[in-house]
């Protein structure tokens, strides 16, 4: 595993804690809007620690919260129609009052959750949501495939959050999973205007530019740019392959009826022709399945990481902003003589903020990389396996066809060694009764 450092501040505490206890430990004075503890709560630290050891994502036996998204249903009101998804939570965590929850949520609720999480943890990598509905495609908003694709992505999103050592402890997350009715909670929190204010500051800071970005974050930035372009390319190529395969499939489907038609005019050749016809038909089915699998397994995974790349870019920006803000204040401190004490406090606070942000990012970065590798690796392998299966099926089903043809007899006479050895083996292995045609030919 790549070097992942546990933030030096916290390591001292880990040794004192019981894994099962979920103690609220003191937090530093960096306040977050929802009041939830920063990444120094014991459970999250413990989770973090565990993650360092594991190559893979958390095994189920260490998970103490399970979330699923299913059962999309149309919900019709006077003003609009939308889909509600059922979100089921099962957990042993003590901060939850009950061990099971079932609520209904709509897409907007997910958007709310995510934006809250991003706000509270600006330099953590919060998994992206499936995109909003875009009119450009031919897909209807309530098309079943679209809904199903979205449901799967929402499910993944919640699971990514619940697997995250820090984000899963978020109060907003808890509210999202448990509150019967979310609207009242959505109204709370920093309003639109304050968010606007932050954005303005961010823009101003970015205009000012950074003094010096630490080397490691520059490298990260470069990586993010490259990764983004590569993953987009892979996504595009995959889409193109699917398109080409669909067109191939359309043409392939025309073989079988033609061979069948031919078989009708023939006597001796009818059997082999029908064999080829069914062979090609099965080929078509296999190809169809392969395309299906590509669409269902690889494309969503790639797409998710395309969105991830955008998330990463945003995270890098926010980190830069935090640093920029600190630098700005620091400069002000250096130039202004008056009111140094309070300004100093402010600057100290910002310095801490920068440090925390950086550390959070560093930790989360490794975590994200592992996760990315695992996800993409399994997507690619699953695709390869499907490909192998696909070709295997074609080969295997071809063999009985071959035997069938042997059975019908082939003339005597010289054949190339490969062909005849193959055939002899096939016939011998299968102990086929000799057809009279076959016998006649031998005579």
């Amino acid at each position, binding site marked *: 595993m790549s070097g992942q450092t546990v933030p030096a501040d916290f390591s001292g505490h880990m040794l004192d804690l019981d894994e099962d206890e979920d103690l609220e430990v003191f937090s530093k004075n960096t306040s977050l809007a929802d009041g939830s503890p920063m990444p120094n709560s014991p459970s999250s630290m413990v989770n973090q620690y565990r993650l360092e050891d594991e190559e893979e994502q958390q095994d189920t036996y260490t998970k103490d919260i399970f979330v699923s998204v299913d059962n999309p249903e149309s919900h019709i009101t006077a003003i609009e129609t939308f889909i509600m998804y059922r979100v089921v939570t099962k957990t042993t965590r003590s901060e939850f009052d009950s061990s099971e929850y079932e609520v209904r949520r709509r897409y907007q609720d997910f958007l709310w959750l995510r934006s809250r999480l991003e706000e509270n943890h600006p330099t953590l990598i919060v998994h992206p949501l499936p995109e909003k509905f875009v009119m450009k495609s031919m897909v209807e908003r309530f098309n079943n495939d679209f809904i199903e694709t979205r449901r799967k992505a929402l499910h993944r999103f919640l699971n990514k959050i619940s697997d995250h050592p820090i984000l899963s402890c978020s109060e907003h997350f808890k509210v999202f999973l448990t509150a019967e009715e979310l609207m009242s909670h959505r109204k709370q929190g920093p309003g639109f205007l304050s968010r606007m204010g932050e954005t303005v500051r961010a823009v101003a800071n970015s205009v000012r530019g950074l003094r010096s970005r630490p080397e490691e974050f520059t490298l990260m930035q470069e990586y993010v740019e490259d990764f983004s372009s590569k993953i987009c390319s892979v996504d595009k190529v995959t889409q193109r*392959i699917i398109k080409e395969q669909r067109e191939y499939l359309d043409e392939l489907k025309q073989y079988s009826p033609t061979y069948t038609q031919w078989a009708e005019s023939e006597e001796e050749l009818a059997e082999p022709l029908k064999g080829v016809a069914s062979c090609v038909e099965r080929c078509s089915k296999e190809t169809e399945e392969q395309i299906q699998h590509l669409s269902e397994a690889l494309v969503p995974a790639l797409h998710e990481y395309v969105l991830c790349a955008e998330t990463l870019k945003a995270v890098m920006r926010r980190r830069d902003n935090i640093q920029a803000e600190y630098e700005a204040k620091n400069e002000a401190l250096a130039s202004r003589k008056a009111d140094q004490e309070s300004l100093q406090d402010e600057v100290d606070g910002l310095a801490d903020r920068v440090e925390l942000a950086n550390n959070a990012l560093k930790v989360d970065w490794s975590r994200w990389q592992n996760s990315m590798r695992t996800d993409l690796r399994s997507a690619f392998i699953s695709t390869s396996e499907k490909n192998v299966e696909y070709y295997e099926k074609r080969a295997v089903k071809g063999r009985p066809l071959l035997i069938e043809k042997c059975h019908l007899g082939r003339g005597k006479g010289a054949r190339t060694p490969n062909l005849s050895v193959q055939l002899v083996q096939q016939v011998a292995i299968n102990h086929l009764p000799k057809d009279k045609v076959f016998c006649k030919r031998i005579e």
Partner: protein
Amino acid sequence: MMADSASTEEVAVIGNTDITSAESENNIINTMVERGTALLRKMEINVAEAEKRTGKNTVNMQETYTVYLIETRPAESVPEGGTPATPDTLWRRYSEFELLRMYLLVTYPYIIVPPLPEKRAEFVWHKLSADNLDPDFVERRRVGLENFLLRVASHPVLSNDKIFFLFLTEEKGWREEVLDTGFQDKVDSRLKSLSAMFRVKNPDKRFTALKQYSDELNTVISQLLRVRARVADRLYGVYKVHGNYGRVFSEWSAIEKEMGDGLQSAGHHMDTYAASIDDILEEEEHYADQLKEYLFYTDAVRSVCRKHELIQYELEMAVQDLAHKKQQKEELATGTVRVFSLKGMTSKLFGQESQEQRESRLAALDQSIQEGEETVMEKNTECKEFVRTAWEDIERFKEQKDKDLREALISYAIMQISMCKKTKGEDGSAATRTEPSI
């Protein structure tokens, strides 16, 4: 495996042996040789090479054309360690093959004459060029021409033809020999008969069935070839796009630390995969050529049926003509007019003719009837003979067709399987290589 054939014939040497897909071709040729015509017992034939030439054509313009080298050598078994005799060789161009075939068609109208490879590339898909000078096209044509010669050489009737023998052995002067046979006159009448519209009163059911079968075969093979061209195009596209993966994975591997090797190797495999399409399509091309041969064979079958129709028609006309004349005689003899005729009218109007006149007319009619009867007998014999010889060849052809096409279909299936295995191997190793490194 070759020992089964229990023949002492040498296998016809195929000029170009590095195409494995020609194994099936080999099989068909081996079968032809086993048939053991007198000609093939004497000599081995192959079309070894192709060369470009430029020269002045009939309208005195420069043109570039391809010539093919025909090799013949005595078919003796070569002792161990001995070298085979040097072959006799001559060069022929495609138009000379065409001339030979036209001669055979006209001279043996009851024989299903083997077809030549196509004059222009049809059923092309985008990668194959339709250019006659394209080396791939020339190569496939070389194979097709050799196949043609061997088919003729293994035919029980055609192999004995002198002009064919001279085609293989006399470079100069062959053209004059062919033209001397006067076959050109028959060419026109053949063309006319092929396009003529006439109705046969009592068509021979067997020929009707054969013509119908031939038409069906033609339709179905054309359809297959068209589909194949489109499928090939598409499949080519799929493989080539996979090549893009190769490039992207390689670039991506450069920015990753842990995944780097896995991505790199995945990239290589994608490149290999993309390149493998060329072999796959070449193998398929061979199968397509085998289908094409039988597509063109259907034309030959059709023309035999048409020729039969023509003969049948002529026979029926002769019979009808004879019957008409006999009837005329009867009328003349008995004085009755059964059927309205101008003669009858005029005699009624202008009076009966004299006894002399009548007798001379009767004599003429008798003569005519006799001639008519001879004609009918001739035509009858011709027809019977045609039917007999044609059906002999048709039965031979049916057997050959069944064997060849079964062979082709089986090879096609095997080829598909082996292609799958090869690709599976690629994919499998791609999967196993990416797994541990990622």
